[in-house]
């Protein structure tokens, strides 16, 4: 616990502080720029792009060694990964647009082929004399050991640019994700905006490669936006909430992994993000599972109450146990099933409401009205007292007894 706290406060050594800061920045950039891909329902394109980075890493290493340089130069490797990632991205887009294959098939094909090529290259590199200590496998699952200051700078600069571009393009990307036809009719080039959207994601993937690895970076791009969606109904806010959640997950994950010797950083970050997702899934006020369940329960209760009271008014037997329970809990029915004084009064009221609605539907044969009669809305909420009086006069309620005067 002490280790965790000191890691949380950036007091667990230079490397741990660097990793925590880098992870937080990467988390923010990934969450924010992954949002529109998620809203466009193309989240998995990022998986293909991430896997397509691997052959680039291998090729860049071989090229740099062949030119007599140090094959491990991070910027060189990232540049190589960006090239093949872009190639993979364009290929997915081309297959989906120009052939009869759908996008999911394109993603599957590109992902596996590029990853396969990458693994072959990595194996070849293992046999090269310069390749033994290359440590390129760390690009698969990420590695924080020996993270350099320049690595953090790459993340900071690249991440800032990605967030800035997301901010700049937020309106076109919102339009394209929400209503691509309208976007095209308004003169936006939908294809270019889509490519920009995926290009952003590609950039974040490349800069995060070293830290979390190509297999798990997808989680940082997708999970925070999905989590953020639970908390707001506005696209602009999803971006920032996703960024914040990603940043928190990155920071907390790095701190947790720094507090114990055997905890890998990338996977822990993803697990923290998944924890935040689970919390939101259950607890979010409007879209969460708990809230939805509660709403459904309340609604069901109202339906049963109404049906039970109508049955009382028509002296029909109430067979459903739940209905009886609801009425009993409100003191409308005695334990032996006989209506109480209050129950009879309520039943009469509900029956009258129902009759008034019958008249109202006859008088206003309007499609707009049918939407307002859900069987539960008291008529007083829809019509004025005068209108209800008019309905009552047509109801032909109790008339004075006696002949004509």
């Amino acid at each position: 616990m002490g280790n965790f706290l000191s890691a949380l406060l950036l007091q667990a050594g230079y490397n741990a502080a660097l990793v925590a800061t880098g992870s937080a920045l990467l988390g923010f950039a990934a969450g924010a720029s992954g949002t529109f891909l998620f809203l466009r329902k193309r989240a998995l394109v990022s998986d293909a792009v991430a896997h397509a980075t691997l052959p680039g890493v291998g090729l860049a290493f071989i090229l740099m060694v062949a030119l007599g340089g140090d094959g491990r130069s991070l910027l060189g490797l990232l540049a190589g990964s960006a090239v093949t990632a872009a190639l993979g991205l364009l290929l997915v887009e081309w297959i989906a647009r120009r052939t009869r294959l759908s996008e999911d098939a394109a993603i599957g094909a590109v992902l596996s082929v590029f990853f396969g090529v990458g693994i072959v290259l990595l194996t070849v590199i293992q046999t090269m004399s310069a390749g033994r200590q290359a440590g390129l496998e760390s690009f698969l699952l990420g590695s924080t050991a020996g993270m350099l200051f320049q690595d953090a700078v790459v993340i900071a600069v690249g991440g800032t640019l990605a967030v800035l571009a997301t901010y700049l393009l937020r309106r076109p990307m919102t339009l394209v994700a929400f209503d691509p036809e309208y976007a095209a009719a308004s003169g936006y080039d939908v294809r270019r905006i889509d490519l920009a959207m995926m290009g952003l994601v590609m950039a974040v993937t490349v800069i995060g490669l070293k830290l979390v690895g190509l297999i798990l970076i997808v989680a940082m791009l997708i999970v925070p936006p999905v989590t953020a969606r639970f908390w707001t109904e506005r696209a602009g806010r999803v971006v920032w909430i996703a960024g914040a959640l990603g940043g928190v997950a990155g920071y907390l994950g790095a701190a947790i992994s720094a507090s114990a010797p055997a905890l890998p950083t990338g996977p822990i970050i993803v697990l923290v993000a998944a924890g935040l997702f689970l919390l939101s899934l259950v607890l979010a006020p409007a879209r969460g599972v708990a809230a939805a369940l509660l709403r459904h329960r309340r609604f069901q209760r109202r339906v049963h109450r109404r049906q039970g009271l109508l049955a009382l008014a028509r002296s029909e037997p109430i067979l459903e146990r739940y209905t009886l329970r609801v009425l009993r809990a409100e003191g409308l029915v005695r334990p032996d099933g006989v209506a109480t004084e209050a129950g009879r009064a309520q039943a009469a009221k509900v029956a009258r409401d129902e009759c008034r609605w019958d008249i109202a539907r006859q008088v206003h044969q309007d499609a707009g009205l049918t939407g307002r009669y859900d069987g539960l809305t008291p008529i007083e909420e829809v019509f004025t007292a005068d209108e209800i009086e008019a309905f009552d006069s047509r109801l032909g309620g109790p008339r004075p007894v006696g002949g004509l005067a």
Partner: protein
Amino acid sequence: MTRPTETPITLAATEGRVTPRAAIPADAPLVLRGLTVSYGEKPAVFSVDATFAPEAMTAIIGPNGAGKSTMLKAALGVIPRLSGEVAVFGQPIDVARDRIAYVPQRASVDWDFPTTVIDVVLMGLYRRVGLLGRLTGAHLSRARDCLDRVGMGDFAARQIGQLSGGQQQRVFLARALAQDADLYLLDEPFAGVDAATERAIIDVLKALKAQKKAVVCVHHDLATVASYFDEVFLINVRRIAQGPVAETFTAENLHATYGGRLATTHLDQLDLAQG
């Protein structure tokens, strides 16, 4: 055996000339010339010429699959056209894009998208604001005003998917109003909406016409053509007829458009022009 008589056809091209095209009238809101759109190798719209009238409400009518929506989308560049030209107020569409407002069919939208009603209306202002601009209070009050015009002022904060179909359609009309265009193109605005919405929409469209705007609707309800619209454009892959409702909306033209699909009993109930 008599040989079949061959009707002599004089081709202008054989004399080495091609008939010059009439100039595109600059005041026509939308002109289509030889517009062809195909899905695969099956033309959905074939070589259609159309000139839509200014300060009028035009209905595009035709059977299902006749290319009504396709024609509109191709004119706007939403789907690629195989051939043909499009002119908006005498200019290429990319120059005059800001003078057009489009209301797509409701089906094209992601209803669970995180956006509120007022956000949707503000989308109509995105192009005017630009990438770097800010949406100001003036923009917001403009959007609210447009919502009020379609009777949706009370729903500004709702998520778009929580509205009924008719309410959603009105919100999309409000988004088009926010663009303050000169030409309004609507794709089946009355499809699947309630009576109150239909009235609200037609009132707004008539108000637009009164402000000297042009309105073009893809329309499917023949019964309301005569009461809602001034002009009709009949299409079934090819252009069948175009003109004022009073002259063009005839039984003959409808038969040419719909073929046997239109029952005579149905025709009797329509307020048809005598042609």
